């Protein structure tokens, strides 16, 4: 009588233990950090930063280059990724302080275009479109994270630390001030908030977390090339945050699970060629983004009411 459900659970357990499930969990951890950090700057801060994936790319390349060329240890690598991504994001912050929405969107897009042009063309450093192969999995205190299972534990620890830090941040007065500045910067200023400083910090923090996610990505794949950091990737991150409701921590976490794990896994059951599957997934992400924006168009970015 219990055989059928038991068989199902055993099968489920086997799937969970399989290499493939571990792969999905690692991917989920990386995207949770990436999406949640974009949620901080875009969802809470209302800053339409199209260069977020560019800072993720900077983090990935920093870790890749430091660990292959200089054999730097894992924590130094991730720290360097976070710092470099955060510092370069200060340029985006400087643009945002001077420019209103439309111009800022163009400026951040131009910044990400500069980054991807450099990744492709600065061949002596990044090896161009060939990418950087042979990034070693980290090793620390005698523990070798080479196996997928050990590496998963490592990713889980880093993800939980990052998400915990961001969860605290989302509940802090910093996030509340940032949200107030997004709704009306004049009102926030008149209540004594330094809007410029808040926004610069938001760019620094969110890009530093994106840099850590990039570092994990480089360690995990052992190989990175510029094609992983295109505008398509930016649309995916934007979709996750919009579907999960901008500014909502748990909503974005659930949307990451849906869009990074459940949707692609569901699509695998369709009898389609892999060459069609990739574009189909991209199409569905964009369609979902459009539908959610269409349904929430009155609520998504409330327009300031004129008195």
């Amino acid at each position, binding site marked *: 009588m219990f055989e059928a459900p038991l068989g199902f659970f055993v099968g489920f357990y086997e799937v969970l233990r399989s290499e493939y499930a571990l792969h999905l969990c690692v991917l989920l951890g990386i995207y949770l950090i990436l999406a949640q950090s974009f949620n901080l700057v875009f969802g809470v801060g209302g800053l*339409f930063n199209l260069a977020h994936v560019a800072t993720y790319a900077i983090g990935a390349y920093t870790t890749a280059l430091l660990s292959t060329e200089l054999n730097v240890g894992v924590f130094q690598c991730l720290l360097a990724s976070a710092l470099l991504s955060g510092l370069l994001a200060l*340029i985006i912050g*400087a*643009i945002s302080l*001077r*420019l209103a*929405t*439309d*111009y800022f*969107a*163009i*400026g951040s*897009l*131009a*910044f990400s*275009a*500069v980054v991807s*042009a*450099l990744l*492709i*063309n600065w*061949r002596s450093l990044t090896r*161009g479109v060939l990418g950087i192969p042979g990034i070693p999995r980290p090793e620390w205190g005698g523990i070798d994270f080479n196996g997928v299972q050990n590496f998963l534990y490592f990713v889980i620890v880093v993800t939980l630390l990052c998400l915990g830090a961001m969860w605290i941040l989302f509940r802090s007065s910093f996030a509340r001030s940032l949200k107030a500045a997004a709704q009306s910067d004049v009102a926030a200023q008149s209540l004594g908030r330094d809007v410029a400083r808040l926004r610069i910090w938001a760019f620094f923090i969110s890009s530093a977390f994106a840099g850590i996610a990039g570092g994990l990505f480089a360690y995990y794949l052992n190989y990175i090339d510029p094609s992983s950091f*295109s*505008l*398509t990737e930016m*649309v995916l991150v*934007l*979709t996750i945050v*919009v579907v999960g409701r901008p500014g909502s921590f748990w909503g974005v976490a659930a949307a990451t699970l849906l869009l990074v794990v459940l949707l692609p896994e569901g699509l695998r059951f369709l009898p389609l060629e892999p*060459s*069609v599957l*990739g*574009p*189909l997934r*991209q*199409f569905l*992400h*964009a*369609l979902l*983004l*459009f539908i959610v*924006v*269409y349904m929430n*168009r*009155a609520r*998504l*970015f*409330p*327009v300031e009411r004129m008195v």
Partner: protein
Amino acid sequence: MDILPQLLINALISGSIYAIASAGLSLSYGLQRILNFAQGHFMMVGAYAFYAARILHQGSLPESGVVALLVMLLLGLASLYIFVLPFSSFSPLLPFVTTLALGAMLEASVSMLFGVNVQSISRGLEFESIEFGGVFITPIQIVIIVSALSLLSLLGLLVHCTSFGRRIRALSEHRYAAASLGTSYTGTTIIVFCLGTVLSGYAGILVGLETNIQPTMGASYTIKAFAAMTLGGLGNLWGTVLGSYLLGLIENLSIGLDFGGYSLPAGYKDAFAFVIILGVLLIKPEGLFRRVGRRV
């Protein structure tokens, strides 16, 4: 060796393509204050419609051109009604997101229909390049330069010498004032938006004939069009045209310039152009050219 004349001609060619692609976008921005992130993807779709008509269905050149431009007209109408107009009374950030989604959807659809590989639409059109005193130019490139000059002059006539152009200018200057005097905002917007779409489709066909086509070619042209608009000032039509040629000039001269025996590798020309855009945005966000009195 003196390569300066050749670089100037190359600058004129790429500038012409950017000008055709971004002139309509600039007029549209003047009316709606909306950035269209699917602009480069419209060019890509135009090129693929031409590819489908000419290579897959063996149409002649003019037939394929007409088919492609009709496809662009329909695409422009559909995009405006589905992706832009429903959001016009809400936050101006929304159309950014929806046109980004539109661009991703167009790219994915074309990849699924035609495959992700590079295709050629100039098959069977073998042209000899012509030499004028050390400068090489192909007939396609002459077509690009001539179409830019003629299309831009026609656009200039339309905007400055017809009653329709007067309506565009009035609405760009003050939307509500012009609308209260009986100018149809939505009607003008539809025509201008579709004009921009058809022009960018035509630019896409020219790019395809000059090089190759690929579903992923769109995003970089979107950024180029924005760059041209930024140089000239958003919503400033003639500024955008000048900005387009300036962008072509910057890109091509950056390869040829000699910094004391060290010249910039060819691959860096995109990066160099975008760094200049960032600089212009930071120092002179209103664009390099002063708007004399009125918009457009």
